[in-house]
Each structure stands twice: as structure tokens, then as C-alpha cells.
């Protein structure tokens, strides 16, 4: 299931002493985390634990109050030019898809390619069509997002991020806004991506996905990491009381 051949020991992401405060509220309270190249890290935990905030700090959508983020050894800085440069190679997929409603599926995928990566229109289009085919939506190239189902929109959003040839993909609860019957098609695309060796950080409540696809599960609660390691350890044999209570809660919900 896991493509271990692509796992190396190079840290792709290194987060050190990450603190994030919104006013007086401490959301992240000194997080240290490493994600290696080719690794799939899944962030789980109760709502309000800071999972999404941590993810958004990786590409600078949220600014850390203290601490550092390094991507491939390059320190994250909040200057416009360095943010743009870093984000070009870090894909992000949102809970609410955030496709551009005034553009077709294909245009959603080509815009940043031509504007940011400076590819020619023809190259961007070719790549866009290849990626649409890959997420099973070649026939929807000219559809506007409003004509697509949630699952289709999210697959286009994944293709849009992949079009930039990212070295890292961030997923912020990518299936939480979907009707249950549409979750599978999105997870399938993510599973294939993981099998190809993409480095991924995924915030999700899909425990089966975490169990099957993750190399590294991180359980966050109250702004800190309470448990981390391979899925079998974190999900089946958690050491901390906080982790056990969270996991028994979501099992009760199932």
C-alpha cells in the first residue's frame, strides 16, 4: 500500500517551536514536526486542536507568532516575493474547494501555470488536459464549477494544485464538505498521489484513509502534539490518555 521505495530521510518540512496566537488565544503551543520527502503525514485530532492552523502555517496563509518553518531547507519568510516563490511549489487543497467560479475547469488549472510558471498557453492546456484525465474529468474541461458536483470540484482543485508541479501537497479537510457518497472518489485520487510518492500533509477525519495511506500520523490536541508515529501505533496503541479518549470518541461516532 505504501510506496516505501520513495521514502527518504531528507526532511521536506521542518517545523520548529511553532507558536500561533489569535489575540490571547493560543492555537499552536510550540509544535516541532518533521515531514520527510515522499512521506504522507496525516494530522488528526479534535476540532479546535490547531490542525488546520498548523497546515496553513506551512505555506504562510497564517503567520506564525513564533517559531520557524523550513521547506527543503529554505526558511519561510513573509515577504511577498518569497511567499509567492515558495507557494509556487507547495500545492494546497481546501475544504470548500475554492475553485474560481468565473473560469472553466480547464481555465482553473491553466491560469497559474501561465501567470506564475510562465508556461505557454498550449503547454498549460496540455498539462491541464492530462491532469483532468488523471482525476477522471477529461469530459468536464469546459464546465464551470457551478455545473460540477462537490467531488468533481475537489478533483479539479487537486488537478489545479498539481499543475504547478508541486514538491509538496497540503490538504485541509478535503472531504469534509462532501456528501458521503462523493468522499471515495476524492480519497482515491489522493491515494494514487501518495502511491506515486508525493509528499503530503493531510488534515482529515477519515480514519480509514489515515490507517491505509499515512506513513506518519500526528494527533494534535489543545495546540500540541499528543501522539505521533506510524498509524498502527497512534491509532491502535496510543500511549497517552488524551489520545485514547479522542480515538474512542470518534469510534463511538462511527
Amino acid at each position, binding site marked *: 500500500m505504501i510506496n516505501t521505495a520513495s521514502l527518504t530521510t531528507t526532511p521536506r518540512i521542518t517545523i520548529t517551536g511553532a507558536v500561533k496566537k489569535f489575540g490571547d488565544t493560543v492555537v499552536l503551543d510550540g509544535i516541532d514536526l518533521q515531514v520527510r520527502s515522499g512521506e504522507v503525514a496525516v494530522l488528526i485530532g479534535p476540532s479546535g486542536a490547531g490542525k488546520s492552523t498548523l497546515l496553513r502555517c506551512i*505555506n504562510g*496563509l497564517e503567520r506564525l507568532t513564533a517559531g520557524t518553518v523550513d521547506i527543503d531547507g529554505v526558511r519561510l519568510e513573509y515577504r*511577498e516575493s518569497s*511567499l*509567492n*516563490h*515558495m*507557494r*509556487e*511549489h*507547495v*500545492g*494546497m487543497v*481546501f475544504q*470548500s474547494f*475554492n*475553485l*474560481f*467560479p*468565473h473560469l472553466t475547469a480547464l481555465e482553473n488549472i491553466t*491560469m*497559474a501555470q501561465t*501567470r*506564475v510558471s510562465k508556461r505557454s498557453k498550449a503547454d498549460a492546456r496540455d498539462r491541464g488536459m492530462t491532469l483532468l484525465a488523471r482525476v477522471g474529468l477529461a469530459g468536464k474541461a469546459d464546465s*464551470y*464549477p*457551478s*455545473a460540477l458536483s462537490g467531488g468533481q470540484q475537489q478533483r479539479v*482543485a487537486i488537478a*489545479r*494544485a498539481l499543475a*504547478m508541479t508541486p514538491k509538496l501537497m497540503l490538504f485541509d479537510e478535503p472531504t469534509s464538505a462532501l456528501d458521503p457518497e462523493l468522499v471515495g472518489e476524492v480519497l482515491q485520487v489522493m491515494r494514487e498521489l501518495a502511491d506515486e510518492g508525493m509528499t503530503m500533509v493531510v488534515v482529515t477525519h477519515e480514519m480509514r484513509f489515515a490507517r491505509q495511506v499515512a506513513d506518519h500520523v500526528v494527533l494534535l490536541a489543545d495546540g500540541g502534539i499528543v501522539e505521533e508515529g506510524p498509524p498502527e501505533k497512534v491509532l491502535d496503541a496510543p500511549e497517552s490518555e488524551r489520545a485514547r479518549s479522542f480515538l474512542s470518541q470518534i469510534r463511538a461516532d462511527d
Partner: protein
Amino acid sequence: MEFLNALITSWPTLLKGLTVTLSLTALTLVFSVVLGAIIVALKMSKIRALSAFATAYLAIVRGVPLIALLFVIYFGIVSIVKVDAFAAAAIGLSVHSSAYVAEIFRSGINSVHNGQIEASRSLGMSRVATMSKVVAPQALRVVVPALVNQAIISLKDSAVASFITVDELFMSAQRLSAATFQPLTYYAIVSLYYLAIVGAMTYFSGRVERYFEKRG
């Protein structure tokens, strides 16, 4: 019957006035959209002095009656450079309308969901590219009805230009009514003219809205 007769015989005179009114309105539209865009850009600027300037501009322009603004500009400019009444009216109407256009633009920009900006920025798109390629196109379709409404207001406001001697539609009716001692007839006729143009603009607005709806 008499009314119908007046309607027909007044046509050549009123047509001249109508041409002036329509050009004045068209100029007001173009300049107020440009000025409004500049003002909203200043207003949203991170540089405090620029945003303070925009706030002051909006407060002054919206706080002063159009007719007072027109008089101040007409007599103010005439005292410095020689400029005709038409130009003064075009400037005054544009400045007046630009404040409302700026507010329309601002509400359009604010109506675009923040997730759109985040999605664009997360692709490495710059702030400027995000504004022009993601936010502005979406804001535009939201503001079209409000902009057409503002255009209708500008058309009707242009009648005030007659106070600074611009020979536009309303002034033509004034002259006809003075010459014939039939104010009711000619003010009713000129009202029909305004009504017809506003009707055409409303129809056009509906067409534009439907065009955007079709594009999803």
C-alpha cells in the same frame, strides 16, 4: 392632440439637448468608473496616508450637495483657467458619482469570498494578479446592477448642469416652456425623454445580468 403636436414640434430642439445630456452622462460614467477604481484602490491601500486621503474624499464628496459641488467647480475653475460649462459639469458630475462608484466597487470586492483569495495566493499568484484575475472579475458581475443604477442616477443628475448654463435636455425644455408659457406640457415631455432612456438602460442591465448568469 395639442400635446402630441407639442411632442412632435419640440423634437428638433430637444434632440440637441438630448445629445448633450447623453454625452455628459457617458463622460460621467467613464470618468466616475476610473476615478472610483482609483479611490477604492487608495482606500484599500496599506499606506495609511493614501487610505486617509480616500476616506476624506468620500466624506467630502458625499457630504456636499451635487449642485453646490457643481457651482464650486464651475466658478472655482473658471477663476483659474478658462473652461466651458460643459467641461465643468462633466468634472463635477464625475467627481460626485465617483464616490458612489467607489463604494459600489468596495462592496463588490468584499463580496468575494476570502477562500478565493487564499486559493489564488496558494498557487503563487501575486497580490496584484489575484486582484485582477480572481477578485475583480467576480466582483464585476456583482456590481453590474448597482453600476447601472448609478448610471441612471447620473443621467438624471445631469439635469442639474442646466444651473451652470449647460444647454442640455432639461435646459431645452426650460427654454421651450418659457417661450410658449406651457411649462406643464414641456416638462411632461422632457420627463418622457428621461423615462425612455432609463427604460432602455434598465433593459440593457437585464441583458448583461442574464449574460453573466449563463456563464455560471
